[in-house]
């Protein structure tokens, strides 16, 4: 069974395409991309409504699916459901589960749950150290063989410079990156918010930006020493971005990501509109305006490689506590695309092809997975985007198990029209008219 998407604007930076192209999907793969493709009798034509953008499937390379162990916050099933609603055809999930994903058993369990959910593709990320304890390397070859695409001790940094050095050396056998949660822990102390005017006046213990950049500098130096690949996760501080630029300038194998909240919000949010809103508490913390603006600049000038959400679901009860007792983190999968459209595209910060590099091309390259391009013969993972869709963020209506977002009630321009994974529409946005034919398509597998 073949079907042809007609009438969309194909933005496929990996193949240098941006314009009106037809996309022919045959079963689970992309058969052809071209202008005015011939239609034979067994091809169903789907005429897209005006303005729809066809993008290679978006990939969020930094999410917490919480399974196994914290299924009250999220599961692989609910997390991947949130992913496809958010336009992501694939997610890479962090190993700080319970038990930690530091062995093939946990990796296989996650993949089994992902197959059962049958929504977004799931790429597990293994632990750097056993139990994420920062002492002994995890069985990285075993993790890689089981399907892990990278290693990280996310939730905390790789504990010592020596262990990081070993990890950067060892992972070269598999050509996978070490993803680093940069945080100099003695400097962080029991900090809960960015160290600055707002934390000071609210009486919250501070975490300076240098807490992040010092660790990034360490890791970039070690990547230079070893030739290993380091990816700096969820960058928040301008000094960290400078460290990454310095590393790139010296040809170090370093890439980096930034989360939407770090290029949109600032620490002013700690006090307004709701003082001590625990949905303004994440790690790294919301930083000051200069940092936020530096992230926007990094997105525009190419220094930033990836936008990832750091989707960190937490149960309402866990967040409905005193600010300093609340866990760090917010959800991100279901808001990222609309936030990027509204604050990056419509605000004139970056172009749409650049956004798709950040959300699809580059993450696919960094974690070394298929995708990121609408290439003939590739899996038919596509995201259909509606750049002018009026979207109101409604936390209560989210499909993620957790609703901890600081963007509740935000009115944004731009959103997801449909998500297609392996040739199968797994999400069609009812708010976008003219997509009925997509909804009616029977499951391909």
């Amino acid at each position, binding site marked *: 069974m073949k079907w042809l998407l007609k009438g969309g604007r194909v933005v496929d930076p990996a193949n240098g395409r941006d314009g009106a192209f037809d996309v022919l999907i045959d079963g689970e793969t992309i058969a052809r991309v071209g202008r005015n493709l011939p239609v034979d009798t067994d091809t169903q034509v789907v005429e897209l409504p005006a303005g729809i953008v066809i993008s290679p499937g978006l990939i969020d390379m930094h999410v917490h699916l919480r399974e196994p162990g914290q299924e009250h916050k999220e599961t692989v099933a609910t997390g991947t459901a949130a992913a496809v609603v958010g336009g992501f055809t694939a997610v890479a999930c962090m190993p700080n589960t319970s038990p930690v994903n530091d062995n093939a058993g946990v990796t296989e369990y996650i993949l089994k749950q992902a197959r059962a959910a049958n929504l977004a593709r799931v790429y597990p990320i293994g632990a750097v150290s056993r139990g994420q304890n920062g002492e002994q390397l995890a069985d990285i070859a075993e993790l890689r063989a089981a399907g892990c695409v990278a290693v990280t001790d996310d939730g905390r940094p790789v504990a010592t410079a020596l262990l990081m050095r070993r990890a950067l050396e060892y992972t070269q056998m598999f050509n996978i990156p070490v993803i680093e949660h940069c945080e100099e822990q003695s400097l962080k102390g029991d900090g809960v918010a960015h160290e600055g005017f707002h934390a000071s*006046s609210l*009486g919250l213990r*501070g975490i300076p930006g240098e807490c992040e950049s010092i660790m990034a500098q360490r890791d970039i130096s070690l990547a230079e020493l070893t030739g290993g690949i380091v990816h700096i996760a969820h960058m928040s501080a301008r000094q960290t971005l400078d460290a990454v630029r310095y590393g790139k300038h010296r040809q170090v194998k370093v890439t980096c990501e930034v989360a939407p909240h770090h290029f949109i919000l600032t620490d002013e949010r700690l006090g307004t509109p709701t003082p001590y809103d625990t949905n303004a508490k994440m790690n790294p913390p919301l930083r000051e305006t200069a940092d936020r603006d530096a992230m926007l600049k990094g997105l525009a000038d190419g220094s930033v490689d990836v936008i990832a959400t750091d989707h960190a679901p937490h149960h309402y009860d866990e967040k*409905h506590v005193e600010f300093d007792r609340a866990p760090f983190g917010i959800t991100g999968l279901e808001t990222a695309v609309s936030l990027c459209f509204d604050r990056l595209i419509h605000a004139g910060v970056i172009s749409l092809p650049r956004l798709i590099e950040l959300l699809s091309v580059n993450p696919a390259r960094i974690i070394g997975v298929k995708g990121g391009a609408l290439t003939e013969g590739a899996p038919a993972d596509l995201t259909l985007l509606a750049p002018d869709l009026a979207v109101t963020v409604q936390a209560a209506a989210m499909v993620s198990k957790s609703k901890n977002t600081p963007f509740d009630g935000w009115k944004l321009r731009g959103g997801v029209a449909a998500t297609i994974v392996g040739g199968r529409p797994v999400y069609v946005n009812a708010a976008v008219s003219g997509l009925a034919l997509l909804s009616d398509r029977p499951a391909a597998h």
Partner: protein
Amino acid sequence: MKKDLLSISDLTRDEIYRILETADAMREIGTRPIKKVPTLRGKTVVNLFYEPSTRTRTSFEIAEKRLSADTLNIAVSASSVQKGETLADTAMNIEAMSPDMIVIRHASSGACHLLSRICKSRIINAGDGMHEHPTQALLDAYTIRQHKPTIEGLKVAIVGDLLHSRVLRSNVLLLTKLGADVWVCGPPTLVPRGMQQLGVTVSTSVEAAIDRADVIMMLRIQQERMQGAYFPSLREYFSLFGMTSARVALAKPDVIIMHPGPMNRGVEIASDVADGPHSVILEQVANGVAVRMAVLYLLAGGVEDEVAA
């Protein structure tokens, strides 16, 4: 007045003066043979204390009793917080018994804001973590006004652990709002980032800070919070920042010395200063009752922004 008193920033200049003037009337009640008025008869005030506090809790309780409110003290120890119910649950349980006001002291900054979002009762912040202690700042202002014709233009030096002090934050907001020239002073390890943005002068020289000061306010060195090694020793702290008679001589001759208590004699303040002629430390305690009566009385009234709240 707003529904709650969580921060000095909830108050306008006029409301601050109104509280101070009402406190004047309340102070007279404390001089009567029967130190009680029926004003808050039938109202229930819950004193919810998550941190031990003799002074503040007693002061609130006396204020409540002088206004004839029914008072209930709930002391929650830190250990039972760890294993017990959440603050939100405690708040909902107390709220279910419909008290009129809740006075809360809590180790977490912003705990009173959480309570305020849950409860219809009026909330009075009796100290939240490192954030604020608004009634302390009000009673400090009241005490200053007893000794100085006006707060506007006074040089006020606040010396000590600026980082962890809720008394500091409330006093800075209040005194700058009333036009004082506020200097804050402490070792650089205990100066919070961005203090200058609050409109104060930051100095690490106690001599500069108290030079010709009208008011010196000493902050407690919280020895239990000094685990982070903010300075080498109490001895060295005292030699650099301790308030001694020699230092007091740098201030104006009619300077008043204040301390929110409890004092560490020989750490932040020398005994001869604490007990000396410039000290108004016990007056602060006495004024606490009158100021808290004023706050309780004024908060018991209608709320101007009830709809918004």
